[in-house]
């Protein structure tokens, strides 16, 4: 007992000592170091979102390595500056996010910030961004609120990933233009037949954002789509049979899922295997990762994923090569493959480098001006007009999203995607699987 007290005391002392010592290296380099652009990366390295956060941070490292190995960023005075990344772990919590952002901005004195995953976490430090006027390229948070907030100055915040508004709109358009005619053809029904769409969404800012986007798109476009059932579940749920039963009772033509990959795969499996809901499932882009295909197995057949970066497919052309190169360098370094939050973070670093290069300096006002005026060729993901630029109103990037349909590959025991929409990217046509059962009015 007595020795144990000393033992505890010494542990605490050592811990405090470590704390004191390790605080040093972070601030060792003076903030005015010539030839270095300090890029802060805010990512969830721990907590429930750690797998996404790790992917973002590792992708940022791959991007920085590539830029640095090609000589770095040329500044106004002709000198070459290297990118130096500093990571801030937001611990998937609001307090963590606030601490990480303050540390990067005030202690590490970064020139520009990239990253940010959960909208709830990101919103907790936006006021710090506004206050210190640091350009921040958000590459993970999907809520449009991030740049639409009016209570603080968001003019330094740039949103480089599609928002829930975008996914909802694209997918609803796809349903209207492609799925609805196919179903009518199969039924031999007139074009006036309303399409019966059901939704199953995660009850969070993400899921509700998609849900309201779908509703808005249908209303504003006066689309011939009827929402026959809208069910929700709590984040982290694993048993979806009850909402799926309710959806089946509504006889839908297709089901749109606003879910995370760890929910989307069980939903489709339970729907097809346990409920016998043999319909088309439409998924949000974040499901497009290797694990999703593995978890889904045979049940993924016929499903649709709205996507912008996939482990198994790329739109033909220059983008495909760039994506492969990124995947390979990522794999060479970390032994796994990047997902789409990683891809947009990778681009975020390139955008930060380009804006700094255009400004010729790390001065924050100048860099922000260059971000507003940004017009650089797309990096690895397909962008609208093949260029990365931010919209003048809310500083959001516009991605060229696509729809892919999964088909079963018996030798792999998994499904693989093929792009079926839009016309300029597609490699095959959307088809209704042979087992597909269309909905009907009860």
């Amino acid at each position: 007992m007595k020795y144990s007290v000393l033992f505890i005391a010494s542990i605490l002392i050592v811990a405090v000592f470590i704390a004191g010592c390790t605080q040093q290296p972070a601030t060792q380099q003076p903030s005015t170091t010539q030839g270095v652009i300090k890029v802060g990366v805010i990512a969830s390295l721990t907590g429930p979102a750690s797998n996404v956060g790790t992917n973002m941070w590792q992708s940022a490292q791959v991007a920085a390595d590539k830029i640095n190995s090609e000589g770095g960023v040329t500044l106004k005075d002709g000198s070459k500056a290297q990118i130096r990344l500093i990571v801030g772990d937001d611990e998937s919590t609001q307090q963590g996010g606030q601490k990480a952002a303050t540390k990067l901005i005030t202690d590490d004195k970064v020139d520009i910030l990239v990253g940010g995953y959960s909208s709830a976490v990101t919103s907790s430090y936006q006021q710090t961004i506004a206050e210190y006027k640091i350009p921040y390229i958000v590459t993970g948070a999907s809520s449009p609120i991030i740049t639409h907030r009016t209570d603080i100055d968001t003019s330094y915040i740039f949103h480089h990933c599609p928002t829930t508004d975008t996914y909802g709109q694209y997918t609803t358009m796809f349903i209207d233009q492609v799925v609805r005619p196919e179903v009518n053809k199969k039924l031999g029904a007139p074009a006036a037949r309303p399409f019966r769409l059901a939704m199953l969404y995660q009850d969070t800012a993400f899921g509700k954002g998609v849900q309201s986007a779908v509703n808005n798109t249908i209303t504003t476009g006066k689309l011939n789509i009827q929402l026959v059932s809208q069910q929700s579940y709590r984040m982290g749920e694993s048993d979806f049979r009850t909402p799926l039963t309710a959806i089946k009772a509504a006889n839908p033509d297709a089901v749109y899922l606003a879910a995370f990959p760890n929910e989307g795969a069980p939903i489709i499996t339970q729907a097809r295997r346990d409920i016998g809901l043999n319909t088309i499932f439409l998924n949000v882009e974040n499901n497009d990762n290797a694990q999703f295909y593995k978890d889904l197995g045979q049940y993924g057949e016929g499903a649709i994923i709205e996507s912008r970066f996939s482990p198994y497919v790329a739109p033909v052309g220059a983008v495909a090569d760039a994506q492969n190169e990124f995947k390979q360098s990522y794999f060479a370094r970390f032994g796994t493959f990047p997902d789409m939050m990683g891809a947009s973070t990778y681009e975020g670093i390139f955008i930060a480098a380009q804006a700094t290069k255009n400004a010729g300096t790390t001065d924050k006002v100048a860099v922000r001006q260059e971000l507003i005026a940004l017009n650089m060729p797309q990096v690895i993901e397909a962008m609208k007009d093949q260029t990365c630029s931010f919209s003048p109103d809310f500083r959001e990037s516009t991605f060229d999203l696509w729809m892919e349909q999964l088909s079963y590959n018996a030798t792999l025991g998994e499904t693989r995607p093929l792009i079926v929409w839009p016309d300029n990217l597609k490699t095959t046509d959307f088809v209704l699987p042979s087992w597909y059962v269309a909905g009907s009015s009860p």
Partner: protein
Amino acid sequence: MDNLGVFLQIIFWGLYAGCIYILLATGLNLIFGVMKIVNFAHGEFLMIGAYITATIFFISGINPYLIILLSMLALIGIGAVIERFCFRPILGTGKLNEIFLSIGLIYIFQNGAAIIWTDEWQSVKSPYDGISLPFGSLSVPLDYILIMFFTAAIICGLYLFLKKTTIGMQMRATSQNRKGAMLVGIDVERIDVISFGLGCALAAAAGTLWIVSGQIFNPYMGSIPAIKAFAIIILGGLGSIPGAIIGGLLMGLAENGAAFLLGGIWKDAISFVILIIVLVVRPTGLFGEKGD
């Protein structure tokens, strides 16, 4: 599908989900009965059990239903170590200290697992995936029937162990009267180790069955089932096995009913609304004993 079919199906899924909770709740009750402690980190044993099964399966490709025994044995060992070095030193120092210790264990297990097995979601494919049996008007995946069978077998085995073996009888004696048990010469500390180990083994069985049925898993998977199992044994009355079973069924029905009628967000909240109502009427739970 007729309404009766839907009703049968919902009951069937409730039973299947209930199996996981019954195994977890029985384990918690076993430990509580003997040691009068509740381990808030019980879900982490479910997670470790699942990962052990998955690892052996990925390496050897043995039928995961057979690995369940290995996983349970491993967790008896891990549980015994945790009991001996973590819970025994704080036995009798207050409930809040147990919660505190559990928080420490949750940190260690969740993040230790993330270091060993990474934090990515993973899945195990059952060899019977895709096989369904006709069962009256419904067709039921074979895996679900196997899970119910395994749960029933494990619970029956536990019952026989408690009734027929010397150690089982000593465990029951200790849980009825700890001091009395010590007086008649039972080594209660040994009984503590065994009960804790068995409780953890039941969690490992739950974890194995959970992932074999097609649930995907990561190091944080244990928290939600553990909290639910915990709410169930509180609802049923601490230490009462029939209470745990009836509590589990009640919550299963209430959760699914609430998700259907009020929306999915109410699924967790409704369990606690029921828990609160029951406890206001009966402060020791449905089948809990009156007393201190």
